[in-house]
């Protein structure tokens, strides 16, 4: 056998391996493709063999060929085969090949799920590692979903090598399957504190918005490095860092303007581009002109169109940013734009054009100037279009023609411009520009007519008509549809007008009317922001969909319902039609009254094609020198003018100030400092027309969110409690034996969840009803409560009726769900009892979801707790012995779930037979209160941990403001300490994990560790919070004293009567007693109070005598014998710790002295 293997491998060693393949390819330089195709044939043969080693070798070669650009997806199945080899060597080859060529579209990828799972749980860490590495490259949503749980398990692998890989791959899993983020989050957070430095995952988690890593950038040192940037990388990084600083501290970067401008001269394009980025953020009103001037110089110098185009877009970006915020002189800006048209071969003609249009439309004051400039531009159009290479720039003619036409009233010599627009050369321009030319020629024509109207000798007007009639036929022949259509239409119009002119009819007014109307800019988002009118449901059907009615017909019940829907439908449409007509009318009126509404007029047309530039051969006037359009004012002049103006203004201001100072005396120091932003007034009063928005436009922040952001899926609220449906899918087909307790719980909790939901709904209904009847008679309320109680009894026969048989019959699984039912019903009862107190209601709602409600709070163990206690109880149930005990246990459990389930608790507590209701009780006592906030608290012990108690605090916002950033802090004593998260100092405060809108309350839990529990304690503490109202936010503080009573260390623990008897007989307990006088409440109320407030349970009750039991968190037994006769209650108590007992008795005494 062994010989055979050796022989096989000897055969194999002469197969071509990867090195041979590489060598072969290098030796066949001339016919590489042919050689490789023969190699691929060989590989195909090898893949057909059974020997896995041969296959692996073939796959290895394929991986190499893939790198050379050959498609190897046909071998995907063989790759999977090699991946599933048991040998690490081959497995690694397989996974490498898979990572190189598998992707979401690979169909065999789903075959790998089980193999990967097997490898992930392999005892060999390198098998696992290789699988993780491979998976990280080709993980698909399906794989992520199926394997998320396996990877989660690996995060606590014994080997750090695996742990770090598992943590890293979780990020990929989250991206593919975002639902896994929330369930995995706690584990992930834990792993971030992994002592092994290998987990370098933090930077990636940063992207998940998990850790807000605040990066402290040392500004000063960075600045230094930029100054002495001998090292090119530092320069680059310095600029990069500056752009980040700029976002937070714009002022500090602005002072380095010169330095950054210098970087524009750098020979490294990367650095120049970074510097440009920076400039965008650091312009101000003051330096805009200067910066742009520098940039213009660079535009002239720049070599290579890419960089020059980049410069051009940056100049325009810089100037137009935030609604032309920084432009003080729009004449200057227009001339800059005109200068930019000189750029040879730029692709951004349309950008300049749209800027021209934008400025001309929105800045009314500039129109005259703009029109003059545009007219010159049109006049010199041949310079722009002369070179075919400059075709991109001819887009500006589009803008120029439109501006001249639209605002032709500002033109000095419309006749000349009209002539320029109708030159034969125009026919060489792209179609969409010609179309604008024709249309605007008509507008100009109208203006000329109007100008010469009333002149006796209307020679000019007639000449114009003739000009149009002469020139337009050229456009009528245009191949472009738009041009042709417009030209022929206008030509006929002009001919008609000419006829009228010859008859001396005044036509100007009518012609002008063709182009009447004002144009307003509309914000691009305007349509989106139109608020939906009240009562309009966009998702509702206008007419009922036909398919639905069909399906309705199929239903047997439809026979009865047939008549009705038809009727209602017809009525519906009637209403709709009326309503629609009415609305239409209203809308029309509204539009008519709204001066800003754009009425349909030809001038408002805006045909703006993509810059599809046609290449038309043109007779060229080639200019090697940069174009200088005659008569064009250079932007530099504006710069000078502006400077002079500012100087002047400054001087004037100084004068004024001096005067003032003379009057006021030496109040202020001289203003030698740099002038501030506000000091610079715009050159002329410019009215920037803001973009139109619909009335009542809704402000929305989500406009800026990039819908393509791959991380958007991870925008998940991690603080929300985990719903069962969100738990990671766990394979359930495993044998029972392997089932972990966690899985067990999982499967169990699903029905509970649904139950709970229905319960909540019920509760809400009740709540509503309850509100309605809030002021109805007390009796009614009581009745209702009884009714609910009855309901409770009915649904829970084994619970309420103490018959042995029903108890026996109750099987554990049904009882769990039944239990849930009880919880729900109790909630309902509670709602009835304690509704007036909003705090209690809040507790209720929060406790309804209690098992999952506090994943982030220190009290993480709580849900575990209740669950385990439930388990315990289940066990006890099986014993099926002491039903009464059991029930008490259930109460206890319930008590943990519902903070103040007291009222109902005590009713149940062995006193069901007595119908007399108990007054509402709550263990929550006032902690502190001021005008903003009220805090009530309750302290509960914990079975599991003998040194910890949980303080549940309900915060209620009493103000009309928003309360946020609440921080809870307590001054620790030697004995009791607030548990703070790891790494926090002993005096650090804990952040309350929620904010409070007005009138809302919420509960937070804090864990305290205590050493000795025999004495009551008081801890001083403070709550600080920020009150945020519309106008202001103030910092507030509230001091409180937490009172740890000895009672709070007791836990309701059931005790069987025989065990109780044994305990008393043992003689380890020391006795004490207490007498209470003047108690005039029913005995069961008294017991209920002790049970509820002091965490006792009734062991046995005979008439007016009862034995009670409780246990402290540290295991002290406390036994009470309560007797009553004639308003006197005597309590004999025994405990193994006398001081504890004394304190408990004192507290019991206090409880009853209050009532």
């Amino acid at each position, binding site marked *: 056998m062994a010989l055979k293997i050796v022989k096989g491998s000897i055969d194999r060693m002469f197969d071509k391996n990867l090195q041979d393949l590489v060598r072969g390819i290098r030796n066949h330089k001339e016919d590489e493709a042919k050689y490789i195709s023969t190699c691929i044939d060989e590989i195909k043969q090898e893949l057909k063999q059974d020997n896995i080693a041969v296959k692996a070798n073939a796959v290895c070669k394929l991986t190499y060929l893939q790198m050379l650009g050959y498609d190897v997806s046909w071998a995907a199945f063989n790759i999977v085969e090699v991946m599933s080899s048991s040998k690490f060597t081959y497995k690694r080859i397989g996974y490498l090949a898979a990572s190189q060529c598998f992707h979401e579209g690979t169909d065999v990828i789903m075959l790998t799920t089980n193999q990967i799972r097997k490898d992930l749980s392999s005892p060999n860490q390198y098998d696992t590692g290789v699988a993780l590495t491979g998976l990280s490259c080709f993980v698909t949503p399906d794989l992520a979903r199926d394997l998320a749980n396996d990877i989660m398990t690996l995060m606590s692998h014994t080997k750090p090598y695996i742990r770090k890989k598992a943590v*890293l*791959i979780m990020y990929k899993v989250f991206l593919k399957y975002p639902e896994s983020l929330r369930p995995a989050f706690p584990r992930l957070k834990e792993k971030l504190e992994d002592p092994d430095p290998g987990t370098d995952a933090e930077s990636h988690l940063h992207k998940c918005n998990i850790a807000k890593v605040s990066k402290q950038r040392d500004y000063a040192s960075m600045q230094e490095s930029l100054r002495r940037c001998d090292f090119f990388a530092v320069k680059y990084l310095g600029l990069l860092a500056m752009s980040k600083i700029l976002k937070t501290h714009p002022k500090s970067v602005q002072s380095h303007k010169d330095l950054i401008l210098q970087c524009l001269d750098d020979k490294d394009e990367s650095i120049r581009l970074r510097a440009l980025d920076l400039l965008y953020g650091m312009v101000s009103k003051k330096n805009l002109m200067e910066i742009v001037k520098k940039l213009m110089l660079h535009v002239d110098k720049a070599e290579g169109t890419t960089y020059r185009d980049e410069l051009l877009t940056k100049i325009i970006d810089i100037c137009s940013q935030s609604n032309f915020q920084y432009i003080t002189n729009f004449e200057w800006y227009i001339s800059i734009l005109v200068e930019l048209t000189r750029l040879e071969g730029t692709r951004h003609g349309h950008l300049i054009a749209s800027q021209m249009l934008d400025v001309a439309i929105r800045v009314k004051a500039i129109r005259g100037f703009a029109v003059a400039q545009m007219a010159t531009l049109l006049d010199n159009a041949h310079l722009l279009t002369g070179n075919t290479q400059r075709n991109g720039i001819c887009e500006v003619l589009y803008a120029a023609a439109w501006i001249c036409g639209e605002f032709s009233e500002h033109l000095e010599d419309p006749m000349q411009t009209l002539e320029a627009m109708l030159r034969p050369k125009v026919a060489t321009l792209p179609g969409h520009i010609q179309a604008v030319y024709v249309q605007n020629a008509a507008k100009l024509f109208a203006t000329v007519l109007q100008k010469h109207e009333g002149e006796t000798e209307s020679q000019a007007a007639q000449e114009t008509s003739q000009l149009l009639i002469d020139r337009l036929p050229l456009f009528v022949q245009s191949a472009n549809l738009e041009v042709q259509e417009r030209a022929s239409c206008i030509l006929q119009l002009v001919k008609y007008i000419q006829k009228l002119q010859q008859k001396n009819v005044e036509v100007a007014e009518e012609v002008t009317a063709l182009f009447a109307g004002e144009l307003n800019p509309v914000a691009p988002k305007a349509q989106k922001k139109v608020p939906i009118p009240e009562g309009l449901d966009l998702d509702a059907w206008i007419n009922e969909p036909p398919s639905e009615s069909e399906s309705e017909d199929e239903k047997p019940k439809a026979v009865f319902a047939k008549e009705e829907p038809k009727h209602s439908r017809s009525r519906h449409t009637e209403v709709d039609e009326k309503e629609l007509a009415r609305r239409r009318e209203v809308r029309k009126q509204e539009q008519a009254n709204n001066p800003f509404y754009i009425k349909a007029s030809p001038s408002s047309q805006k045909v703006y094609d993509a810059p599809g530039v046609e290449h038309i051969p043109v007779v060229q006037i080639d200019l090697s020198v940069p174009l200088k359009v005659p008569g064009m004012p250079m932007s530099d002049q504006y710069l000078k003018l502006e400077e002079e103006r500012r100087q002047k203004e400054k001087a004037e201001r100084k004068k004024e100030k001096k005067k003032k100072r003379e009057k006021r005396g030496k109040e202020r120091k001289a203003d030698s400092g740099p002038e501030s932003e506000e000091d610079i007034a715009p050159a002329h009063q410019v009215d920037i027309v803001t973009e139109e928005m619909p009335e009542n436009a809704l402000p929305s922040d989500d406009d800026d969110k990039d819908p393509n952001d791959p991380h958007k899926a991870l925008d998940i609220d991690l603080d929300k409690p985990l719903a069962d449906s969100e738990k990671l899918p766990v394979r359930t087909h495993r044998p029972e034996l392997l089932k972990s307790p966690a899985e067990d719980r999982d499967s169990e909790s699903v029905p509970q969840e649904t139950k709970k939901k229905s319960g909540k709904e019920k509760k809400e209904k009740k709540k509503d009803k309850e509100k309605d009847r809030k002021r109805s008679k007390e009796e009614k309320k009581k009745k209702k409560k009884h009714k609910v109680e009855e309901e409770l009894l009915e649904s829970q026969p084994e619970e309420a009726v103490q018959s042995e048989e029903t108890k026996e019959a109750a099987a554990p699984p049904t009882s769990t769900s039944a239990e849930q039912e009880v919880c729900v019903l109790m909630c309902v009862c509670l709602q009835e009892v304690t509704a007036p107190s909003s705090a209690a209601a809040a507790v209720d709602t929060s406790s309804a979801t209690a098992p999952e409600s506090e994943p982030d709070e220190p009290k993480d163990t709580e849900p575990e707790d209740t669950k385990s206690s439930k388990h315990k109880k289940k066990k006890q149930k099986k014993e099926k012995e002491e039903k009464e005990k059991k029930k008490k246990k259930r109460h206890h459990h319930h008590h943990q779930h519902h903070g103040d389930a007291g009222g109902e608790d005590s009713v149940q507590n062995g006193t069901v037979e007595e119908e007399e209701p108990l007054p509402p009780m709550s263990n929550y006592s006032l902690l502190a209160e001021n005008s903003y906030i009220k805090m009530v608290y309750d302290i509960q012990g914990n079975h599991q941990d003998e040194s910890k108690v949980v303080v549940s605090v309900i915060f209620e916002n009493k103000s009309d403001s928003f309360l946020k950033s609440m921080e809870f802090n307590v001054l620790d004593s030697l004995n009791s300490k607030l548990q703070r998260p790891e790494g926090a100092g002993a005096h650090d405060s804990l952040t309350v994990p929620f904010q409070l809108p007005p009138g809302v309350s919420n509960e937070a839990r804090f864990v305290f560790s205590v050493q000795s529990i025999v004495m009551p304690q008081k801890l001083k503490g403070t709550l600080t919070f920020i009150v945020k109202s519309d106008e202001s936010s103030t910092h507030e503080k509230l001091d409180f004293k937490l009172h740890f009573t000895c009672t709070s260390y007791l836990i309701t623990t059931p005790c069987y009567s025989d065990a109780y008897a044994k305990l008393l007989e043992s003689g380890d307990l020391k006795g004490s007693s207490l007498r209470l006088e003047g108690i005039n409440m029913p005995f069961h109320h008294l017991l209920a109070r002790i049970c509820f407030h002091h965490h006792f349970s009734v062991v046995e009750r005979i008439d007016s005598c009862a034995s009670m039991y409780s246990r402290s968190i540290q295991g002290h037994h406390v036994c009470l014998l309560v007797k009553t006769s004639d308003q006197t209650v005597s309590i004999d108590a025994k405990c193994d710790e006398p001081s504890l007992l004394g304190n408990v008795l004192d507290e019991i005494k206090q409880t009853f002295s209050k009532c």
Partner: protein
Amino acid sequence: MIKAILIFNNHGKPRLSKFYEHYTEDTEQQIIRETFHLVSKRDENICNFLEGGLLIGGSDNKLIYRHYATLYFVFCVDSSESELGILDLIQVLVETLDKCFENVCELDLIFHVDKVHNILAEMVMGGMVLETNMSEIITQVEAQGKMEKSEAGITGAPARAVSAVKNMNLPEMPKNINIGDISIKVPNLPSFK
């Protein structure tokens, strides 16, 4: 995130390509070509960062590269990666290769691209930086190499012997494209049987 790691020589011949996002084979080749053109035209004494090519995401991505002798090591990363960090990572990669191949040269990368992939897998996983400590990387790579050897066992011995013979000429092979007569004999080896 690292989008791609490319190693090519002064002529743009790919020596290793690792894409952490899926592209078709054709696009991959185009990206390699485009990246080569972007990188190769840059002077030696300007910075090692530039904006990515159009094919691999344009200016949202950065190319961070280093040029060693005949090879360019180019990392294409998105905006979340630190430039200096990646520059350092390239250095670690090259030093690790140098340790693992003992004076690494282009030929090592040509003939053992699978090994380079394995080393890289210990440093970068799915586009995320996994390990930057060189000794840790080498430890893991060597441990896996040992496993491979032990798996091959006795059956691997003859194969190893043959491959040793085949590779014997390797160091003597000229670095340029013209290969002497020795290497012509090598592909003849299989005809022994």
